[in-house]
């Protein structure tokens, strides 16, 4: 990197150290991080933690109430709910990671190009983003699934695509601001190439708003993905995906409440954890809110 000297002064690394300290002070962020950590642990060690095989059916003991044998009861075909919830963390995290990766990578790239490119490039990209934004996201998801056939992966890709505009707009507006900053002008004066400025100088400064947005947009994507099963287009049975479990058991809300409450609360708490983490992150990274 040709502008190494500048990099050292302005890169985000020193700021991150500060952020770590602030984060610890934010109780909300701690709660959120703990919930997320628990999810990761459950996902990693699911086979050791889960008391039963999450796919093992037992129609005779279907919809059994919570008991010592089944901590939170059994579902409509007699599978152990606790085990399914524990294995479900894998699907939940997978959905979060995949949708976030798709939306943020494509969205950031488009935003960078639009913000730093020529007016023509900007215009074309922003019209494309307008199309994505104006296209009702749920219809977009439904159409993509109708094209590619139903599976959890198509669903995730579709939800990921629907999330692109948010990132693109955020990154573009940040780039437009950062472009005016002195250090970018200096880098340009020092003869740094366009690409170096874009990825070496501008991108690192877009990171902190990006991370805040990531923390808010990801749980939203997870919520949308959970609703896919509502129209029969989500994770395929017998996958213990919480959204699918919730959708399939929702009629039992009035009779076998535990079958509904288990995936419902699992989803609520996990998404809540991510939201609260996002809130904490924003308080730290965006000082106006402190």
């Amino acid at each position, binding site marked *: 990197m040709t502008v190494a000297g500048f990099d050292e002064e302005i890169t985000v690394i020193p700021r991150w150290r500060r952020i770590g300290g602030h984060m610890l002070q934010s109780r*909300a962020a701690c709660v959120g991080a703990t919930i997320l950590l628990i999810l990761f642990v459950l996902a990693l060690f699911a086979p050791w933690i889960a008391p039963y095989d999450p796919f093992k059916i037992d129609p005779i003991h279907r919809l059994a109430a919570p008991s010592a044998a089944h901590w939170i009861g059994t579902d409509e075909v007699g599978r152990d709910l606790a085990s399914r919830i524990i294995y479900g963390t894998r699907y939940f995290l997978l959905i979060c990671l995949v949708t976030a990766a798709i939306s943020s990578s494509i969205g950031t790239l488009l935003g960078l190009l639009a913000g730093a490119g020529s007016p023509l490039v900007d215009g074309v990209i922003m*019209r*494309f983003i*307008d*199309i994505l*934004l*104006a*296209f*009702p*996201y*749920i*219809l977009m998801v*439904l*159409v*993509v699934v*109708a*094209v590619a056939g139903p599976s959890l992966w198509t669903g995730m890709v579709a939800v990921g695509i629907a999330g692109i505009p948010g990132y693109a707009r955020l990154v573009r507006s940040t780039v437009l601001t950062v472009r005016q900053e002195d250090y970018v002008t200096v880098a340009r004066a020092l003869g740094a190439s366009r690409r170096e400025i874009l990825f070496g100088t501008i991108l690192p400064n877009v990171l902190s708003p990006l991370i805040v947005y990531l923390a808010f947009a990801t*749980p*939203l994507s997870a*919520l949308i993905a*959970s*609703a896919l099963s*509502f*129209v029969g287009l989500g994770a395929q049975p017998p996958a213990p995906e919480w*959204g699918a479990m*919730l*959708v399939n058991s*929702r009629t039992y*809300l*009035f009779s076998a409440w535990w079958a*509904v409450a288990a995936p*419902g609360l699992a*989803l*609520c*708490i996990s*998404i*809540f954890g991510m*939201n*609260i983490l996002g*809130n904490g992150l924003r308080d730290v990274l965006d000082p*106006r*809110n402190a």
Partner: protein
Amino acid sequence: MAQYVGRRLLLLVPVILGILLVTFLMKALIPTDAVTAMYQGQLSGKSAEKAIAALQAKYHLDLPWYRQLWFYLSDLAHGNLGESVRLHKPVSAVIGYRYLNTIMLTGAALAIALVLGLTTGIVAAAKRNTWLDVTATTIGLFGISMPAFFFGLLLILVFSVWLRILPVVPHGPLAIVLPAFALGIIEAAPLSQVTRSSMIDVMRRDYIQAARARGASELALTIRHALPNALIVVLTIVGLQIGNLLGGAFIVETIFSWHGIGELAVNAIQWRDFALTQAIILVSAATYLMVNLVADLLYAWLDPRVELTA
């Protein structure tokens, strides 16, 4: 101003055309059409194939996608949205009533979101960093963490079955309350947060300090001086939220049997009823774009510092 509006309207044309192009391309990739989806598994015998082919020809479904797009555009230029294969009706006759229903629902939901979001946001800002603030934020965050269909069923259980104060079947004026609440609560939390932070921001400004020095009460300061300025910021995100509300309406509409375009959209796609799907996409996209244009104009009018540049 007029010039700006003109330019903005002009920019909508490529967006609308782009949406049409994208949907027609996707349609070309979808392996079945409305006629096949409707009759397969129902029609049998030799007459079936002929009947399907006849219907496909009637709706131009046998043509390549770009020719279908051409037919569609020329129909559209004459104000004709096409005909629904499944419902044997012109699309405009199908979606008009449902569109009004959805507008009514999103309007009511937005109102609820605004009332809830603004009050909690103002209170949270005024009582910053107290237990009240923390509680409001926490409840708000929990609200946006709940799947809409889960929350919707809980609302029905509590207000219809246990308390018996609101109807389940959408008859009568009270029917809108539950679906609007289920939909509105999702948008209330972000509104509340934006209100809170912009209130805090505004309250720090000089003119508020000056008014305070003149002896204005805290309540008057909040309502008369700070709130109008904070609302300007809120306005910008309301425009974006309309998109979320329109999109989110589909689940809420299904749960509460609120027969709007969201519910229809899901059916239209499952029926592969393309004219219907296309019309719903166009109408919601147009609504979204217009609402945002109006929001931008209002924003510029309300905040003289904003320059209108397209």
